[in-house]
């Protein structure tokens, strides 16, 4: 279940003359899309000025690329509890500007999303205030404390699309085994932050750079160990499991092995880990302090290859708004996290332009695959599907400026970078929620 986009557009409208990319529907080339009441009526090369009839409003895309709206599986907001960082409304503005039409929000709020009433609160607040669709993941353990299982069945009924402890790993193997076993009965996806806590006391990647900066490091094996343990538990229980973000080359091997065995395992990677590495930290730049940490350039390249070859299933923004209060501190004391909703697609297009990831593959990992993993009806361009899509100018250069960002927090690691490609219009349920002001 997702927050319904109440502000549907009743008007029948066509977007014509677009370059439509939706590999899951076999669309790759010139065509149009006809929408009404928030739904897609027709899509493809046959939707033209002539075919839609004279009475239908139409917009000439002039060759711009049209893709299904992005589904971001890892978004943190400050609602409820720390609204000064971000609300569902401000996050949704950032999402709309980035072509993201569905945000999956994390349970790391105050109070924690570990109760059906809080799930309901999120869905109602999103319905009333957000520009894009919102669905929450709920906590695996009560209060994210890693001790007692939350009411997974009730949370699912209330509308949670998966369970996760968000920024925390469930470290207790026996508890995690039970949670997997129980979640399987409800066909609930279990999403894990893969990090062995006892090996993860550091603040950046364990490396020569960390030694030079005098910062404590986390070894990539911390991730690999947790991932390997979890996959054994998936083998035991048969539950659907998703590693929220992997960050290193060694994890790709583990995921490949699990998939080769036919286990119900998927994984994600953040856009940060695909476009940045540990050297970007430079002289203690806290916007690059992430969990898991940015790793080496070799790891980054391996992750890009993992997206291309299908080992990695989804790209997430891992959008985590942090205020100056928590970031303008000495590196070790600063909060983890970076925002990314607004820049995820543009940064990902850099992989298309410069690192040979096909555009169709990007659409899969940013939209259709997350929809499939979460069982959402969005993420596709087909008659009868929700009219959620984005129009993109693949070649427009733009510079990320703090003052232009919609997010309430400005901790963007892409700040001052020039990106190639940007969203020019975002449509949710047939309604334009963002239009680039040229």
């Amino acid at each position: 279940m997702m927050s319904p986009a109440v502000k549907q557009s009743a008007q029948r409208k066509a977007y014509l003359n677009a370059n439509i990319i939706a590999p899951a529907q076999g669309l790759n080339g010139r065509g149009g899309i006809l929408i009404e009441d928030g739904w897609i009526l027709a899509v493809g090369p046959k939707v033209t000025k002539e075919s839609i009839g004279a009475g239908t409003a139409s917009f000439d895309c002039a060759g711009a690329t049209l893709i299904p709206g992005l589904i971001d599986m890892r978004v943190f907001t400050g609602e409820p509890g720390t609204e000064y960082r971000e609300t569902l409304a401000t996050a949704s503005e950032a999402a709309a500007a980035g072509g993201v039409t569905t945000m999956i929000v994390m349970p790391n709020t105050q109070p924690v999303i570990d109760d059906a009433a809080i799930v309901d609160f999120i869905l109602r607040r999103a319905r009333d205030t957000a520009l894009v669709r919102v669905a929450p993941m709920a906590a695996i353990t009560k209060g994210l404390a890693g001790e007692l299982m939350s009411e997974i069945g009730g949370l699912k009924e209330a509308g949670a699309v998966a369970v996760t402890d968000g920024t925390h790993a469930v470290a207790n193997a026996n508890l995690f085994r039970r949670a997997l076993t129980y979640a399987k009965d409800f066909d609930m996806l279990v999403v894990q932050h893969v990090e062995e806590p006892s090996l993860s006391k550091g603040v950046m990647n364990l490396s020569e750079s960390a030694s030079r900066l005098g910062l404590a490091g986390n070894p990539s094996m911390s991730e690999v160990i947790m991932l390997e343990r979890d996959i054994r538990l998936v083998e035991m229980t048969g539950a659907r499991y998703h590693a929220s973000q992997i960050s290193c080359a060694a994890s790709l091997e583990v995921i490949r092995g699990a998939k080769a065995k036919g286990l119900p395992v998927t994984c994600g990677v953040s856009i940060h880990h695909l476009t940045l590495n540990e050297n970007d930290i430079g002289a203690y730049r806290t916007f690059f302090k992430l969990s898991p940490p940015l790793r080496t350039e070799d790891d980054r390249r391996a992750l890009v290859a993992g997206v291309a070859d299908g080992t990695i299933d989804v790209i997430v923004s891992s959008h985590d708004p942090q205020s100056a209060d928590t970031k303008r501190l000495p590196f070790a004391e600063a909060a983890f996290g970076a925002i990314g909703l607004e820049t995820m697609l543009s940064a990902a297009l850099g992989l298309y332009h410069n690192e040979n990831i096909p555009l169709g593959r990007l659409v899969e990992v940013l939209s259709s695959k997350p929809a499939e993993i979460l069982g959402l009806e969005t993420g596709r361009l087909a008659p009868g599907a929700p009219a959620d899509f984005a129009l993109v100018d693949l070649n427009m250069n733009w510079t990320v400026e703090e003052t232009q960002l919609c997010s309430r927090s400005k901790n963007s690691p892409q700040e001052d970078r020039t990106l190639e490609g940007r969203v020019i219009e975002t449509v949710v349920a047939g309604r334009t929620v963002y239009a680039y002001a040229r």
Partner: protein
Amino acid sequence: MTSPSRRSPLLKGQHLLAVDDISPLEINALLDLAETYVSEGNGPQRNPILQGQTQVNLFFEASTRTQSSFEIAGKRLGADVMNMAMSSSAISKGETVLDTAMTINAMRPNFLVVRHQSSGAVELLAQKVSCSVINAGDGQHEHPTQALLDALTIRRRKGSIEGLTVAICGDVLHSRVARSNIHMLNKLGARVRVVAPSTLLPTGIANFGVEVHRNMRDGLEGADVVMMLRLQLERMSGAFVPSQREYYRFYGLNEEKLRYAKPDALVMHPGPMNRGIEIDSNVADGAQSVIREQVEMGVAVRMAVLDALSRNWLGAKS
């Protein structure tokens, strides 16, 4: 009167934050200047060049010797010195490093001497203030004036640092002194070794331009200088090494282990020492020890740093 040559600029930057940032040329100029303060007896100056200047010692982490050394250095040059022990002050009321720094900056001191428990904190603070900032130790990152005083001590005893073999022994992992000294000694042309159990060595240390040894016999073999590091007591009880007893047995410097080094090798320690743990009293107080001299050189080096940094803004004013 000050001669023009004596007051010519020595440092390019406004601050002294890290040895890694300064050139061998700058280092040698600082050491030469410090030498003049030593030869003048290290005492109160006939020409108090910092008269009317304000130096604030901002110590977020407790320190006895470094803080008093900076205080004496400033006073001998005629500066007004104020000490702020931050552990008992605003920080414990929830104020951030930057707020504290900007508050003090608004009172327009000329120097801020800062120690902080977090790596990079002093650099962060330096970005926000208009005065000259001197790093008196940040986390596990750098402690540049300690490396300068160590270099001065070695240079005075050995004539030159180039070509010497220096063994840095002990808790390299957690030591800002070790990092600053590795950079310093490499820049001055020494051969640097580190000697420690692998649990106390940082990842990638071999790429810092050092030879890595895991036992004292190999590490001290033929060394001209043996530099011991302090091992914090809480790290000796099973977390990084099994026990004090075991650490002393394999890595504590006693007369027997010192014999692996050259007969005239210098023994150094940045202090405070754990006698009987990383260093034996016989060695610490022995003929080869220059540990007290290090403290003396500390004052001269800090006078030189204050002097050198003041030239930049005094120069800009005139």
